[in-house]
């Protein structure tokens, strides 16, 4: 209790009517006579101070510590419960120490010389002693302070990562070796990250909002950055759309080639297969020579022949030259009339008809159709003719 005020101010004329009240008045008088700024005591405190009590100082509270500074009577230490020492400052508890009955270990703090770190150390009889920092409720443990402050860890191993989860102690991060950072799961190294000494480019993985695909990309200070994925030995590089989704190859956001569950689907004319066959072609191999370069199904149904849109690739037009003769003009030319390899297949309806090449040019193919019947080789219109073209372009 602070005795800074007169318990019997002028407006209260009577003397104290109890021993406690009288003692309080005496304390005020002493304060007044000695000039001390404060003077504090209780009857029981007095007993403790003069050593007549069976125990030491009183418990006190956070507002009135059992031991206080005379110049700061709400700062000191007190006993809030059995085996507990509490420190109070400004009438508020700031620190508490509790001793367990069977404790053998304890916390040691150590100050330091200049540039040396301060130390909080576990001490005791045990060989290995953990230190638990336990926030209350869902509180967090924050480490680090101002910008530039850092947290250091020991290297750790894949089996015992330096930073791990308390519920899964063999899963976390560790240092593999110099400049190599490792991520472990189930005690096994599962990912290793490193960098060249002057690296300026890196990976970036971005999570995205609903409906979008997360991105794995390369970023950095270079204007143009490639991406290399290497396999080891003869290992296969597999990209698997597990759910049966398409696999797109894009250029500036536009799909130029798509791999679907049934094969390859060109999205635009920019899909290229540049490889030229050398020696015996591989089974099922795709080369520039065996890619269809032109396709036109010509339907003749009364009037002028038409290219069926469902079977039309690289055709500009069909020209009706005569009965049983039409010319397809290709949008993209072949490399030469003599070597383009353009050919027509006799995919013809009715079945007793044939188609033949009348002439080839770099950008055109003229087809003659015949009915193999009594007309004996005379040009004849047929209902359907399918023209396929291969060759260098």
């Amino acid at each position, binding site marked *: 209790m602070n005795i800074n005020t007169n318990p019997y101010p002028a407006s209260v004329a009577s003397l104290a009517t109890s021993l406690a009240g009288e003692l309080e008045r005496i304390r005020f008088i002493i304060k007044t006579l000695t000039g001390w700024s404060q003077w504090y005591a209780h009857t029981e405190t007095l007993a403790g101070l003069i050593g007549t009590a069976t125990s030491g100082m009183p418990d006190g509270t956070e507002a009135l510590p059992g031991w206080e500074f005379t110049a700061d009577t709400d700062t000191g230490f007190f006993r809030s419960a059995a085996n507990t020492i509490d420190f109070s400052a400004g009438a508020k508890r700031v620190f508490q120490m509790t001793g367990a009955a069977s404790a053998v270990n304890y916390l040691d703090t150590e100050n330091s010389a200049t540039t040396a770190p301060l130390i909080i150390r576990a001490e005791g009889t045990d060989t290995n002693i953990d230190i638990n920092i336990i926030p209350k409720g869902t509180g967090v443990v924050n480490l680090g302070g101002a910008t530039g402050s850092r947290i250091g860890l020991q290297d750790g191993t894949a089996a015992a990562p330096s930073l791990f989860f308390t519920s899964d102690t063999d899963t976390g991060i560790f240092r593999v070796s110099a400049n190599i950072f490792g991520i472990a799961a189930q005690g096994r190294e599962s990912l290793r990250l490193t960098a060249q000494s002057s690296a300026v480019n890196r990976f970036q993985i971005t999570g995205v909002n609903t409906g979008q695909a997360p991105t794995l990309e390369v970023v950095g200070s270079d204007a143009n950055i490639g991406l290399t994925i290497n396999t080891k030995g003869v290992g296969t590089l597999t990209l698997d759309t597990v759910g049966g989704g398409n696999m797109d190859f894009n250029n500036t956001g536009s799909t130029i080639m798509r791999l679907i569950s049934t094969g390859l689907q060109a999205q635009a004319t920019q899909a290229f297969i540049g490889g030229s066959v050398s020696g015996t072609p591989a089974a099922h191999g795709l080369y520039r020579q065996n890619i269809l370069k032109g396709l036109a199904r010509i339907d*003749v149904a009364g*009037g*002028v022949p038409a*290219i069926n*849109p469902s079977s039309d690739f690289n055709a*500009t*037009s069909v*020209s009706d*030259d005569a009965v049983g003769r039409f010319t397809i*003009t290709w949008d993209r030319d072949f490399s030469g009339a003599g070597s383009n390899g353009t050919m027509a297949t006799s995919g013809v309806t009715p079945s007793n008809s044939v188609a033949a090449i009348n002439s080839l040019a770099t950008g055109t193919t003229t087809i003659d159709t015949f009915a193999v019947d009594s007309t004996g080789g005379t040009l004849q219109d047929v209902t359907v003719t399918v023209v396929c073209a291969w060759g260098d372009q």
Partner: protein
Amino acid sequence: MAKLRCVVRVDGSIVTIIRPSEKFRLLGESDDALLDRAATLTIQKNPRYQGFTTVDIEETDMPTTRRFRNAWGRVGAKLEVDMPKARTQRLAEIRKDRDKLLDESDKDILRDQEQGGAKQAALRAYRQALRDLPTTLNLDAILTPEALNTFRPTFPVKP
């Protein structure tokens, strides 16, 4: 397709008729623009189409049957079957049928000779009638392609 581009000779006969590919159409391109672009490229790539007049004709103004396609010709803003050419074509077809009967009669004469030659005179008359048949026909009296298509000459009866 509204129109097709016809490449025509001075006499109106058709060199070719160009129909664009639908897949050649650019996004939002009109029929006329598509036809012009495709036809220009087609003529440029086919030297045998060059040096002639071109005319765009509505497809509805063209014959709907190809029976006499090689006799099509430009008449004003339309393509029609040129009847003299169609008659020539039909007569050639009749001659072809006639020639087939003549070929068959060669075997009949040989067979008859082996059997004594009793039908030689009749067969010779039959063959002469076949040879004369085209000259006996007056296709000029047939005035429409449809009638020309259905016209069937009366061939002499084989003895």
